């Protein structure tokens, strides 16, 4: 059963089309990832799906309810963890959860039990009476995830759940996400620009760039589409070499990127001598060559001609979001 269905979802801000005609489905019980660089339209999509922004055109249904016409029903069925922290830092962890529980109309017994449950789930029971302003970044994130689960949502939206967290905390958050997906059967819709995150967590991903959905599929299918193995090499006279390799029928999806040539092959280890042989005959010098299993970054590269890491580099070099990238890598 499809729990989220979007029909030509579009959002324009003036001349800028932030989200362009998205149509996709998310299945019940899966962890679905929306993968794309910063500014691709991920957050705008989440804001529309969670009724915080009105689409310019198109619509979507969540658990059968229309996001424009049945906002209240949609809101009851979803939990959201926003990209920016959305906690009252002058209340304690427990008080933040109580606030949430009342806003969602949980009865007294349910409230009490549920607060205990979710605090246990994210290991914050000991810290329940500490003011949130004294929490670390990771603790805040965990509290928000706990809060998103309080009212038994059918779908939980996570917008960049591990942004700006260190590697260790990120691992822990991933574990919690997997756990609640398994234990509570919550469908999870998450956005990320971390490839490892999508690869580790998601069953299916959609790749979004400049507001457009480029592809949506199981992760294994996406990786197979680039080839069984990926070979990356640098060489002299790369233009000519690419032309030569393009004529070989075992070379798939060849791309040039930052002076490197990347392409997919089957049985990469066995192809390396062959490639070197071709290069030698043409008097081209190979400076380095490597073979590896394909990653989502290769998938992204094959669809857009760039890697998500480039995007990150550009954004952080502008200094705008540099703080967010301090941890994790």
């Amino acid at each position, binding site marked *: 059963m499809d729990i989220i269905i979007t029909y030509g979802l579009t959002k324009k801000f003036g001349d800028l089309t932030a989200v362009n005609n998205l149509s996709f489905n998310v299945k019940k019980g899966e962890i679905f990832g929306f993968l794309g660089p910063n500014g691709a339209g991920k957050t705008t999509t989440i804001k529309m799906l*969670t009724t*915080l*922004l009105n689409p310019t055109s198109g619509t979507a249904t969540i658990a059968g309810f229309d996001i424009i016409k049945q906002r209240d029903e949609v809101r009851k069925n979803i939990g959201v963890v926003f990209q920016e*922290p*959305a906690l*009252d830092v002058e209340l304690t962890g427990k008080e933040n959860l109580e606030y949430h529980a*009342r*806003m969602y*109309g949980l009865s007294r017994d349910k409230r009490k039990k549920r607060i205990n449950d979710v605090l246990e789930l994210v290991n914050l029971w000991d810290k329940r009476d500490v003011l949130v302003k004294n929490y670390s970044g990771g603790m805040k994130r965990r509290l928000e995830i706990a*809060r998103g689960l309080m009212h038994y949502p059918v779908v939980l939206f996570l917008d960049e759940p591990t942004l700006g967290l260190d590697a260790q905390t990120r691992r822990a958050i991933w574990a919690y996400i997997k756990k609640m997906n398994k234990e509570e059967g919550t469908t999870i819709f998450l956005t990320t620009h971390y490839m490892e995150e999508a690869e580790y967590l998601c069953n299916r991903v959609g790749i979004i760039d400049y507001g457009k959905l480029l592809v949506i599929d199981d992760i294994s299918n996406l990786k197979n589409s680039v080839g069984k193995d990926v070979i990356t090499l640098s060489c002299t006279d790369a233009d000519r070499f690419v032309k030569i390799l393009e004529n070989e029928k075992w070379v798939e999806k060849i791309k040039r990127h930052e002076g490197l040539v990347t392409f997919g092959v089957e049985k990469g280890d066995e192809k390396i001598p062959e490639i070197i042989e071709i290069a030698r005959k043409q008097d081209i010098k190979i400076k380095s060559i490597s073979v590896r299993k394909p990653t989502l970054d290769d998938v992204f590269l094959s669809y857009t001609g760039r890697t998500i890491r480039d995007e990150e580099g550009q954004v952080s070099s502008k200094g705008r979001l540099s703080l967010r990238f301090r941890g994790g890598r």
Partner: protein
Amino acid sequence: MRTNELQAIYIMWLRQMKRFLRFKTRLATMVIQPLFFFLLLGSGFRQAVMPGLEGGYIDFLAPGIVAMAILFSSMFTGVSVLWDKQFGFLQEVLVAPVSRFSIIIGRTIGGATTALIQGFIILFIAIILGIKISSGAGLILTIVFMLLLSFTAVGFGLIIASKMNDFQSFSLIMNLIIMPLLFLSSAFFPVTQDKTLQTIAYFNPLFYMIDGLRGSLIGKSNVFPPLIDLIVVCIICIIMLTLGSYLFSKSEV
């Protein structure tokens, strides 16, 4: 109204009370500032004789200071939506299955409660210092005025918060709009001593609130009968709250 909405209003109110009581320094500044005005102006102008001033200056000043305390505190509540916006908490509020109307009611009642507490502290101190209250009925009417003033100021704060995105503009508004309005409202000195002052005051919403407060609490030095003030204040209050709620409900995160 569904119980769900009542729950939401209650918890929004509770949140504000907790924040209010938890931070003693903030609470202290908000009480101490009007108290300074009261004690310093009160002792400085104790002997002053001005046209339009009947009885002692302390009696005249007390309602003005009570109004000032409520005004500042309520505006702060309205504008604190801006804080919630900045800290992202507003998203959590807006994504809940609760109508925008209840959200505004909850915040307004919360703001009014904290403002009234501060107003009463000032009033209590004023009474200890020996101001003469007109009557029991006058005191009840005073509380009505305090409530209306508070609602109006929360509404005004909401308007500001919906229209701006930073705190600098807030202090600009406080200094360039609220302070002059306060000085021209007869809070600190009678406006009847000068024709121009008086004409300006008639266009100042705050004037009716303070005049009404003074008429009901002290029963002296007021320009209009309190009931006339009450009608004007009610109209202003409804306009401000409606406009504030409308703009808030239109604002997107």
